[in-house]
């Protein structure tokens, strides 16, 4: 089995379904658009903000604020890449063509993650420069400390959250189930747990919460709730979640009858 052939095949698979274009385009548009709107808003309201908020203002993170919503589309992308194989029965045809589970999984994840990374990086850079342009006098340059790391980090975040979604879907073997778990998890459970003091410490170790730390350049010291890890530490936690999901997915794929 030649691995480049598998990659080519997976690339064809991914580029020939409409959902790829829709989800990734939605991710980019929502992220850039929402971030831009927020930056306009912040720029106009900056003077009215309380002093401590002005001090803790993170222009870099603000220009990615839309990603909190845009990641929904990336998650849907990741879930669908794997989930449609199962829902359509294509998985049997695919595995008959590429019987080695490792090659199949690696090919699929590599192609989809690379694509998510590419889209994520383009999105993060566009979002950053648009946002900074709109922030006017409150903006920050890409050369400032930690800024480039945050911009790259935003792209990486999108790739890894997609990978996490794919791994989880591989375990669950159903798009519906995966979305049913992931979306409430990211959009409801983690913000709610994060907003309650008692449960906040748990929420810190959720992949999306931990991972988003890499997009920030200003530590959130002022509200007294600093997570127990740095930007790369947080990203590492997120990557560990994704790796765990992928390994579990591989185990399921190997062990269970297709």
């Amino acid at each position: 089995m030649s691995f480049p052939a598998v990659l080519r095949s997976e690339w064809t698979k991914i580029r020939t379904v409409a959902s790829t274009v829709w989800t990734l385009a939605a991710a980019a548009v929502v992220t850039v658009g929402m971030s831009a709107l927020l930056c306009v808003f912040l720029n106009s309201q900056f003077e009215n903000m309380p002093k401590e908020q002005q001090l803790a203002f993170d222009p870099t993170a603000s220009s990615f604020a839309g990603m909190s919503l845009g990641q929904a589309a990336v998650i849907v992308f990741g879930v669908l890449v794997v989930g449609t194989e199962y829902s359509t029965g294509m998985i049997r045809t695919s595995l008959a063509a590429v019987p080695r589970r490792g090659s199949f999984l690696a090919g699929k994840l590599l192609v989809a993650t690379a694509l998510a990374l590419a889209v994520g990086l383009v999105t993060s850079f566009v979002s950053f420069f648009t946002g900074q342009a709109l922030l006017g006098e409150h903006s920050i340059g890409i050369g400032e400390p930690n800024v480039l790391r945050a911009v790259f980090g935003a792209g990486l975040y999108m790739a890894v959250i997609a990978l996490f979604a794919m791994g989880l879907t591989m375990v669950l073997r159903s798009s519906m189930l995966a979305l049913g778990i992931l979306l409430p998890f990211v959009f409801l459970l983690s913000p709610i747990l994060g907003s309650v003091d008692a449960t906040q410490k748990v929420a810190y170790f959720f992949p999306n919460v931990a991972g988003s730390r890499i997009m920030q350049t200003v530590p959130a010291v002022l509200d007294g709730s600093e997570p127990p890890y740095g930007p790369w530490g947080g990203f590492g936690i997120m990557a560990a979640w994704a790796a765990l999901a992928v390994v579990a997915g591989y185990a399921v794929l190997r062990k269970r009858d297709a």
Partner: protein
Amino acid sequence: MIELEALTKRFGAKTAVDNLSFQVKPGVVTGFLGPNGAGKSTTMRMMLDLDNPTSGTVRIDGKHYRDLSEPLKHIGALLDAKAMHGGRSAYNNLLCLAQSNRIPASRVGEVLDLVGLTAVAKKKSKGFSLGMGQRLGIAAALLGDPEILMFDEPVNGLDPEGILWIRNLMKGLAGEGRTVFVSSHLMSEMALTADHLIVIGQGKLLADMSMAEFIHQNSRSFVRLRSPQQEQLKDLLHAEGIAAAALPDSGALEVDGVASEQLGELAARHGIVLHELSPQRASLEEAFMRMTADSVEYQAHAPGAPAAGVGGQAGPADAPAWGAGAEATSKGGR
């Protein structure tokens, strides 16, 4: 060539496939028969390494499926017509399969043409009817121009024209020396297509023999006679010690166990005119029913109808005239 060796698959306590060994040879169409729940699909899925056998092995051209570097070039399979991504066009569905096995993209157009889907190649397969989906699945099986082909219920959903086409396609493929393995529940189709049969019931091998042999072993054959001098004919047969059964309506006689040649000679010697002298062989359906009678899983209660009508010729007593042929052939079963 497909070889199965002591293949076994258990789902919990239930043994779906039980120590199955057989070979599927090239150059002939091999039919794979068995009642529902006999383990046919599981066997076919294990052949493609989609299900892991509990024990035993399957070898494709002497290798394990997972060791085939480009499996589509060795074996093409149609398992489930709908096993394609509906949001992708027919062409692209095939293209991504082709690429994974380094099959040139031009081959995709060829197989689409072969199955008659060229006109809808760019359409999403979501909107395909079952018959079109079946053709697409067949195209996928043919993609790598493999020496071994496997079809699970290929005529499902096809219209009569398509059924005729796939029948001739399979014969043509076998004629080119390929291995063709096809499962179907449609005995009349199988009788027209397959040369060799493998029959399983409750996961066990029941028969592995040629079609003719199978029918011969599992059903009776007889000769139908019709004559304007029927009384003389009856007397003659009686005198010769040949048992003949008269059919109630049609005025024909049925003779068991004597070749038509002998009967022809006999009639000629005694100057009896025959208007019909036709050797009859019971159908594959009847033969199959007899063999698998004990391994049927979801037995229905026929609402009132007597258990008749096996085979091509008979109907229950209340059947319309066209069915009132030779009931005698068909009271098979229990």
